[in-house]
């Protein structure tokens, strides 16, 4: 059961600002301000207006923690407060943490590299010039450790790093730990803060990101025929998950339930996708089976919708293949059109959006979808949010390495129509 949500997303920090942005259909993509992007092919991103002091991070925490860990800790605190759960009540060994991140502490790793290598002049880095926290930046497990220490978890703690499916996979893993009895309460989510020269250069090199530098607000256009790549983003989302009976017993305010999760791989190409969407369809079908829902039960599909031609067609095929005729009736949208693609984090941000869809009974639109790709012929909820009764939602993710994941969430039974 999802009983708490914390979000740090572009366009406004906190869950409320996030939901306001989504339902208004506003976009948070803009010219990069986090570094001087002169000379880069893609100079736009979706950045968070994150103020560490406002998130309650001490001066020492700001100095030591990479931006990604700061996001994670801020979201954890918001989610814990939102859940109203007394984290001192369960035995610490029954509380666990699963965080996801695709690229970990890249910003500090790069910043420190510049320092110890004299801006790349020396292959032999200087051991005397680095931060005392340098090892924590090398290993992204530090993100999970920072969260675990602060929520008092002594149960299973880990980080999942499966590229762009990290966030959905982390939440799926956390739900599994509760259902198998390894924990009663899980802090689960994902964070990425990749807006740095090296990450931007990586995606420039394979032309994956949008070069639409002259019109950043309209650069992320999933399913639109004029799309030209994804817009790099940063952010985080953290959920509090509780064992169902315990959540009901304490009268928790429940957003929804994680009903089914499955992951598959295409074993095809590190970055390429076959247009038939077979493996994502298989993940969806298995997740539906685990959730014991039929295609007709699904009231909303949260698309991966990264805004690359191959993704949009792959995913459209996968949804048709798995949902049959219902694919043409069910609304499906991509929030990446508004908050960009924050790599591993976005999967968790999208699950947070799904929980808010169940709570508020409204569906965020696909912004910037003005000229539909004729190959993409489903209802992508262009431009404007819809109020709609929704009991069951599907969220999908697709990433480098060929990983495909799907999750089914449902409204708590008591709230259903």
């Amino acid at each position, binding site marked *: 059961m999802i009983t708490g949500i914390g979000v740090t997303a572009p366009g406004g920090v906190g869950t409320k600002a996030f939901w306001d942005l989504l339902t208004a259909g506003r976009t948070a993509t803009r010219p990069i301000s986090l570094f001087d992007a002169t000379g880069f092919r893609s100079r736009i991103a979706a950045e968070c207006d994150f103020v560490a002091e406002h998130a309650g991070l001490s001066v020492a925490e700001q100095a030591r923690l990479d931006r990604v860990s700061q996001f994670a800790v801020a979201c954890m605190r918001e989610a814990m407060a939102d859940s109203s759960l007394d984290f001192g009540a369960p035995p610490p060994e029954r509380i666990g943490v699963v965080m996801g991140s695709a690229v970990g502490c890249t910003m500090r790793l790069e910043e420190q590299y510049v320092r110890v290598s004299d801006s790349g002049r020396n292959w*032999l880095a200087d051991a005397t010039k*680095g931060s005392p926290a340098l090892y924590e930046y090398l290993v992204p*497990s530090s993100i999970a450790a920072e969260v*675990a220490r602060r929520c008092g978890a002594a149960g299973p703690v880990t980080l999942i790093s499966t590229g762009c499916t990290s966030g959905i996979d982390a939440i799926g893993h956390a739900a599994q730990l509760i259902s198998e009895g390894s924990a009663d309460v899980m802090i689960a989510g994902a964070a990425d803060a990749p807006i740095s020269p*090296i990450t931007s*250069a990586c995606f420039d090199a394979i032309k994956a990101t949008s070069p639409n530098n002259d019109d950043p607000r309209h650069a992320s256009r999933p399913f639109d025929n004029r799309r030209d790549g994804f817009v790099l983003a940063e952010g985080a989302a953290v959920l509090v998950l509780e064992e169902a009976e315990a959540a009901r017993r304490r009268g928790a305010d429940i957003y929804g339930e994680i009903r089914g999760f499955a992951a598959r791989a295409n*074993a095809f190409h590190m970055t390429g996708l076959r247009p038939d969407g077979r493996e994502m369809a298989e993940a969806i079908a298995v997740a539906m089976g685990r959730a014991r829902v039929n295609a007709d039960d699904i009231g909303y599909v949260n698309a991966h919708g990264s805004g690359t031609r191959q993704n949009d067609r792959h995913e459209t095929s996968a949804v048709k293949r798995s949902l049959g005729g219902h694919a043409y009736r069910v609304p499906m949208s991509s929030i990446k059109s508004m908050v960009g693609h924050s790599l591993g984090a976005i999967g968790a941000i999208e699950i947070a959006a799904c929980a808010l869809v169940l709570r508020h009974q409204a569906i965020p639109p696909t912004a910037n979808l003005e000229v539909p790709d004729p190959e993409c012929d489903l209802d992508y909820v262009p431009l404007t949010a819809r109020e709609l009764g929704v009991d069951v939602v599907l969220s999908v993710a697709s990433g480098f390495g060929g990983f495909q994941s799907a999750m089914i969430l449902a409204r708590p039974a008591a709230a259903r129509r």
Partner: protein
Amino acid sequence: MSARAAITGMGILAPNGIGNEAYWRATLTGRCGIAEITRFDASGYPSRLAGVINDFDPASYVPSRLIAQTDLWSQFALAATAMALDDAGVDPASVPEFTLGVVTASSSAGNEFGQREIQKLWSRGPQFVGAYQSIAWFYAASTGQISIRHGARGACCVLVSEQASGLDALGQARRAIRSEAQVVVSGGTEAPLSPYALVCQLASGQLSDSADPERCFLPFDASARGHVPGEGGAILIVEDAAAAAARGARIYAEILGYAAGFDPWPGSAHSPSLARTISVALADAGITPRDVDVVFADAAAVPALDRSEAAAIETVFGPHAVPVTAPKTMVGRLYAGGAPLDVAAAVLAIRDGVIPPTSGVGELADGCRIDLVRGVTRPARLRTALVIARGFGGFNAALLVRAAD
């Protein structure tokens, strides 16, 4: 009754031996794979020793086009996977579609590749960063490449909890076998010996500054002064035991129990979680401490960590009650590759009825009331082994393997 998870194949790449039998012979005879780092000029660093694999030729295992797209860490993983599948006699094409998964441990990922590209960026400009940086540097690169190379379309996962990741991955592989998979490629590798990665590791404050390869890594010893890093690891084939038996496969051992826990912040009122984590793993396996015949320790060789590990072992088993060993003193600490290598060593120890020694260690530190196997191998009837792994920052994991019936 859920499916049982059997280990049917192993591919070991260690500083003291490439291949299962070469590693095992070296380990039983106390041959140390730790030496001066020569891959780059390490003379300016306070720690210059590491477990180094000198005779690894990626071209023997990995097609040349893949070598260009991957860091050494992924080449190790691809090589160890090929060895492990061969050892298991598994033909990936014969495994039903969507039931072959890849669940690996990862820690610092594509260090040398990443450093080279980041250097190009800062010394020459963003347009000089190569196309493969986006697929070679990140933590899931090895897993994706293994999946593609062997047609694994089942669930893939990458667990990251520093040295504990390897046991977390094998625990997750067992979950996959129980719920949906027939075969899971699991384990992990590490290639931590680039100049920048070494500088990062130095910041942990846990590296030994000794210049003596035989005495630089002395866990539980009165003169313990940290560990040295090492490269390599092991890939294990975890298989549904019934399916393995049906195809007449050799079963090395069964993954019988697993648990993970996390240590509280120093100074917290809560106690460290390792003893409890071991107890939960025993309960998960349905066995008692008396059933455990040998313990493969995490063995950080950092005095406070050695004391807390020895105390946890004593709490669960009693003082000097079970043989404890740490053959990683011959190879260094392999991070994501470390625990899978320890599990492989435990499996071979069970197979041969012999406990490999913790090389180099002399007198135990005060407070370490454990029966540490030192000096030479110890013959013993072994059925069940406990492997302990702890990750930097507070991660704990425990895994039990038992001889096949």
